[in-house]
């Protein structure tokens, strides 16, 4: 059974990687796979989005399957399925293989995950969704998207890439070509905050130094949720008392520290059905079966702690709700096409990074503080980095919670992300420096939103010359930002998009 579990972990992780690699345009306007399925299976994401978003979200129905199975099997998800859990196990089994862990992590730390869950529940209940910070599936996809995968691309591109011009090219080029076809991104991805997001991810991995599954034991709110749901599940760890010789190996080897010192009692909210104990037991005294006779440990939770967490969660709502961004939104807060109205959007968005991963021009970026702290890492279009491809609908296809609506192409083309504006003090033909027209050329709308007018200018040398100057037709501009991306000026763009006039704004546009 232990081998079966390992096989399951590997298989699920490979599927995870396969779907991750396929969260990219592959010559097809519609993605071939449900690449967001891991997030849609996640009851924490589903629960928070439904609770905070005040909506029935049919997209996340698969989470009910996980809830149902957890009621029967306990916290199996963590031991058999969770890709982050598998990465942690792999880290312990490789990097920390020979490590003798001397530090004792206090048992009481386990409580933290329940307190975090309580905090998240209370804040979500009052529409403030902080689940994104701690949900393991969001963490792993976001980290892979913004940090791990770009870093991997960077390493390969900068080592194998330049060798094409050297004598070893006949060896390296086929390898590089193979990697490009199957593993590398079409173009090197670049993300804001890659360093920070990656640092947190590797921090979670590094915590294995203190304890196996440190994250899962102490911090993971999804683990806490599944533990609470599954503690009275039918399938449980049972020890046959006549057979047990009290050798203690099960207690010593438990990756979750879920076996009590008496070896019979199991911390049920922590047992992840990994079945290591069953494998190491020299007397085959341990089984994972249904039935009644099994000793379970109670939850070591104080009512006061839980209530405090709930109170903090609730108190966070007015604290963040009165942040300044709520009064005057940042003009660079340009949301993906099909994004819901801001409050609803943030309530649902779990910052998983799927939309940023799939964005064909690398334009969707994790936000800094454009939407305040509660909006951290939510997707914003950063047109100087990349634009929204006019004929592309991929971000709406991958959003697991419907924070970005899945729109048919014809509808998507009508969505205004914002409006472009020419910086006339910076634009070459406006200043009378030279011709340009690059923004107009790239403007994708059927009738050009950027149009040129031949106008006479007196240049700085006193010559009278005629230049084609760009004007933006605000009725036609969709705010895709390709003009800002392609503006040939090497510093800031002379044409830029702001969120003004965006379709999802509740208030009428101020012209």
């Amino acid at each position, binding site marked *: 059974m232990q081998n079966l579990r390992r096989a399951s972990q590997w298989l699920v992780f490979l599927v995870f990687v396969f779907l991750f690699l396929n969260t990219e*345009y592959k*010559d097809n306007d519609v993605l071939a796979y449900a690449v967001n399925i891991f997030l849609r299976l996640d009851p924490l994401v589903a629960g928070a989005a439904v609770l905070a978003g005040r909506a029935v979200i049919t997209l996340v129905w698969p989470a009910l399957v996980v809830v149902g199975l957890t009621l029967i099997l306990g916290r199996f998800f963590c031991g058999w399925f969770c890709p982050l859990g598998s990465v942690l196990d792999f880290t312990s089994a490789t990097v920390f293989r020979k490590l003798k862990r001397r530090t004792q992590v206090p048992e009481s730390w386990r409580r933290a995950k329940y307190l975090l869950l309580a905090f998240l529940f209370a804040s979500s209940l009052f529409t403030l969704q902080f689940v994104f910070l701690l949900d393991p599936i969001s963490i792993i996809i976001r980290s892979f998207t913004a940090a791990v995968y770009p870093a991997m691309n960077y390493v390969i591109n900068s080592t194998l*890439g*330049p060798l*094409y011009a050297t004598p070893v090219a006949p060896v390296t080029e086929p390898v590089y070509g193979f990697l490009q076809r199957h593993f590398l991104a*079409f173009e090197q991805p670049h993300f804001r905050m890659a360093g920070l997001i990656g640092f947190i991810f590797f921090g979670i991995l590094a915590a294995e130094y203190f304890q196996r599954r440190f994250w899962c034991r102490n911090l993971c709110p999804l683990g806490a949720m599944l533990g609470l749901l599954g503690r009275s599940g039918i399938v449980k760890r049972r020890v046959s008392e006549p057979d047990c010789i009290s050798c203690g190996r099960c207690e010593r080897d438990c990756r979750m520290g879920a076996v009590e010192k008496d070896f019979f009692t199991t911390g049920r909210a922590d047992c992840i059905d990994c079945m290591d104990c069953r494998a190491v037991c020299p007397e085959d005294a341990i089984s994972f079966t249904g039935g009644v006779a099994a000793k379970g440990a109670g939850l070591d939770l104080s009512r006061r702690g839980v209530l405090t967490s709930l109170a903090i969660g609730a108190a966070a709502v007015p604290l963040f709700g009165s942040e300044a961004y709520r009064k005057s939104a940042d003009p660079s807060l340009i949301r993906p096409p099909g994004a819901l109205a801001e409050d609803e959007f943030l309530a649902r968005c779990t910052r998983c990074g799927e939309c940023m991963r799939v964005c*064909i*021009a690398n334009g969707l970026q994790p936000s800094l503080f454009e939407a305040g702290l509660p909006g951290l890492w939510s997707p914003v279009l950063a047109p100087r980095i990349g634009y929204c*491809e*006019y*004929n*592309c609908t991929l971000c709406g296809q991958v959003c697991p919670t419907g924070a970005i609506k899945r729109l048919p192409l014809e509808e998507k083309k009508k969505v205004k992300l914002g409006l472009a504006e020419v910086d006339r003090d910076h634009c*070459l033909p406006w200043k009378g*420096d*030279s*011709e*340009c*027209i*690059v923004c*107009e*050329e*790239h*403007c*994708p*709308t*059927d*009738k*050009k939103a950027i149009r*040129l007018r031949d106008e006479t200018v007196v240049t700085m040398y006193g010559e009278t010359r005629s230049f*084609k100057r760009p004007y933006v037709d605000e009725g036609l501009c969709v705010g895709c930002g390709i003009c800002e991306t*392609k*503006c*040939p000026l*090497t510093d800031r763009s002379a044409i830029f998009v702001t969120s003004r006039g965006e379709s999802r704004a509740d208030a009428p546009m101020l012209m």
Partner: protein
Amino acid sequence: MDYKFDRRAFLKGAATCSLAATGLNLVDGMDPLGIMGGAWAADARPLIAVAKNGAPAQMARASVMAVGGMGRYVKKGDVVVVKPNIGWDRTPELAANTNPDVVKEVVKMCLEAGAKKVRVMDRTCNDPRRCYKRSGIADAVESIGDPAVTVEHIDERRFVTLPIKKGGSLESWTFCQDMLDADRLINVPIAKHHNAARLTMSLKNIMGCLGGNRGNIHHDLDGNIAALNTVMKFDLIVMDAVRVLTANGPQGGKTKDVKVLNTVVAGTDPVAVDAFGATLFGITANDVPHVMNAARLGLGVADLAKIKIKTIDLG
């Protein structure tokens, strides 16, 4: 590094001979088949062929046949780069990219002429994958099913900086090495409206051979297009005018701006091809400054009276 290629030296020689022949003012009629353009012909006028009113593939073939057949340009064992215009994420009926059937037929003719390898590539404006796919060019070329044919994305590592000695405001620019390295380079542009250059045809199609931030070329587009064409030259031009974009170019987006002309033009003189191309839009080379600049730099003949035009009506 000195990038000298047989192909280019060959062309240079050809141009010199052509000039010499012009000087001698040789009489027309010494080339009864009318297939010998440029240097080899007794008739010193550059030859272009215009095929009309057929299917795109048929016109592509007929026009190339009329300028001597592909065998004249591609030799057995050559590595050929075919350079269409695949600039935009647009479908064929919007006439923003070269007609896929024209590209496919050119590739097929290269194979028939014995090319060892035919590589199709362009440096696009929208996402390259979307452009290759939605233009229909990748699918059309791949449908040939010959392993000697590859549709490739531009390898961004492989650009070399070359000096630009004549014309324009640029001192140097980066050029695609794969195209420079090819034994034969075939230009397969589409003729269409362009808001800055007026029209984009064979000369302007060189933009897809360039690296770097091409927006900077637009500061003196008319001068720079001509200047860039003095550095990199094409062995053959097969210009698609099956559907042409008459407004909102180069990207278009409305079928209302598209006019069906059912024409394909072939030739080796880019200025002559473009000068003829201008007439398809009801204007002349005089109205397209970059074509006149190219003529001034000695890249070809813009005066239609001095061009020999063979018309093949397939209708």
